[in-house]
């Protein structure tokens, strides 16, 4: 398979990059001054693209790579891939479900605890020497608080299971009600937000769920409410969220994703009632290796004409 051209869209994982280099003819997208430069030179050589939540395979890339047979995404989210076009052209698509579910769910709980209990802020407090001058303030209890989850898929369910360990009543909104859970279903996000204190975004990003957290939802959640986003930045109307936080119309936010990563709205950097993370949802040594192995396994299966491990299209 060493002659098969594979395009890696960004330096997402050293182990993955190394293994791809061993097994295929690897092209690094970022080695080239521009996308056009790359397409001009190598468009006919690429039979597979390995993308991520940062750069996937959009319409321009798909049209520029006529020999492309498969997109293997180093992510579970597919929002950076033009799935419709892939389907039209018979291009296979795989992602990395399941292996990252636990880490992302753990991160959601970490954000809830850090935001409510002000863990990062009190770490700053100690490091600044402020403890010598006085005690830190009381913070908000987590156990027993109502948690509302948008999207009760693999990750949403894993978050619910963890929050139940803290005696939190769980409610959710998704496209359809899920049978077999004890959780309360709300047919709209606004109703969900009106009836919970901690609202967690855990659904896929699609045209329908873009800005699913908007002004109306934020107002329904209210000044004691907290938004936790481990989905995609575009799930949230970011300027609305920022002004609500700055004006105190929303109690707090724990955010792992932003509309224009790696840029974070400057107003958020000055707030104490937010926790800001650089998109680390699946960011553990263990999980990134599992994700990489899944990408490699899918590519291998495809080029050996075996069934794909985690096909989406």
């Amino acid at each position: 398979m060493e002659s098969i051209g594979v395009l890696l869209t960004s330096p997402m994982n050293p182990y993955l990059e190394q293994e791809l280099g061993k097994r295929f003819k690897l092209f690094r997208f970022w080695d080239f001054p521009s996308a056009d430069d790359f397409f001009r030179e190598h468009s006919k050589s690429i039979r597979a693209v390995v993308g991520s939540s940062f750069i996937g395979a959009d319409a321009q890339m798909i049209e520029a790579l006529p020999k492309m047979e498969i997109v293997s995404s180093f992510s579970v989210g597919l929002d950076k891939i033009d799935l419709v076009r892939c389907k039209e052209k018979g291009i296979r698509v795989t992602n990395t479900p399941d292996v990252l579910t636990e880490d992302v769910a753990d991160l959601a709980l970490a954000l809830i605890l850090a935001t409510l209990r002000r863990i990062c802020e009190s770490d700053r407090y100690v490091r600044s020497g402020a403890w010598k001058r006085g005690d830190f303030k009381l913070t908000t209890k987590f156990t027993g608080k109502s948690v509302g989850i948008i999207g009760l898929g693999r990750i949403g369910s894993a978050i619910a299971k963890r929050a139940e360990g803290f005696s939190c009543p769980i409610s959710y909104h998704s496209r359809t009600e899920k049978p077999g859970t004890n959780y309360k279903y709300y047919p709209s996000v606004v109703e969900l937000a009106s009836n919970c204190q901690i609202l967690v975004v855990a659904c896929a990003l699609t045209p329908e769920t873009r800005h699913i957290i908007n002004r109306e939802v934020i107002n329904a959640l209210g000044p004691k409410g907290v938004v936790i986003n481990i989905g995609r930045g575009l799930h949230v109307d970011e300027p609305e969220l920022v002004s609500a936080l700055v004006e105190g119309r929303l109690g707090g936010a724990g955010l792992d994703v932003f509309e224009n990563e790696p840029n974070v709205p400057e107003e958020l950097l000055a707030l104490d009632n937010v926790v800001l993370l650089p998109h680390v949802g699946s960011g553990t040594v263990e999980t990134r290796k599992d994700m990489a192995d899944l990408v490699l396994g899918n590519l291998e299966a495809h080029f050996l004409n075996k069934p794909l491990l985690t096909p989406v299209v």
Partner: protein
Amino acid sequence: MDELPLVLVHALPPFEISFKGRLQSRFQLIDSLDSTFAPHVSVLLCVGPSPVSSDTLRHLPSLQCIVGSSAGVDHIDLAECRRRGITVTNAGPSFCEDGADFAIGLLIDVLRRISAADRYVRAGLWPMKGDYPLGSKLGGKRVGIVGLGNIGSEIAKRLVAFGCRIAYNSRNKKSSVSFPYYANICNLAANSDILIICCALTKETHHLINKDVMTALGKEGVIINVGRGALINEKELVQCLEQGQIRGAGLDVFENEPDVPKELFELENVVLSPHKAIATPESFASLQELIVGNLEAFFSNKPLLSPVNLE
């Protein structure tokens, strides 16, 4: 006319109770060991960690009960209480949920580098330096809980949902608990990836966590302390952290609060908290109910709500 029962409120500055008014409607409060009423006092309300030493107790020949306001009772001379038959109550279950929540918050923070990554973003480093270094997965890790009391049990219950494997060390094995028990703390450490310290501070547990335990825990190990600072040999902890003998630590308590070893400020693999694991409005409201309840139980000869076993 019946006089209100006498209670000595023992509060060394800066500690004070916020619900004096509520107590004054039911009890006659005195606040000094030198009061002429002191020899007649049968109950002492101990505010925060105000020390109750044998000297304090000498001023109170009629004392029968100390109502504490914290989970820990290491600031009270328990041996003297035992000798004189004085019962002691603590915060009971008031703090256990918040204490457990915070311990888990600290743990995930250390493993997934939450506070460090938040600092990274706030310093504007994400666009400049790129992705943050990877953390370590919590699921499947072996957690050794040191002290399976109120707080330890709540921690165990929560961590099961994260896919952790729980084992514990305690003064005695708990027959009602199915988690594996290790009588020896080094054995627990050798068979754990994470140690969560939430036991009482006593003569026996002073510096329980030392270099030997940390060596047994190993280079990938994480220590979380929501008990008392003196449960860990702080000097040896700092050394182990600086030399990379353990992966990291989350600390809510220190040997000499509010002083924190300044070496820790240089480290990215520690999360520091100013002794506030239990500090929520709900836990203090619950504590207030418990304190009033214990005082009323004492004066009506009913069983105390949260007695501490002094054996």
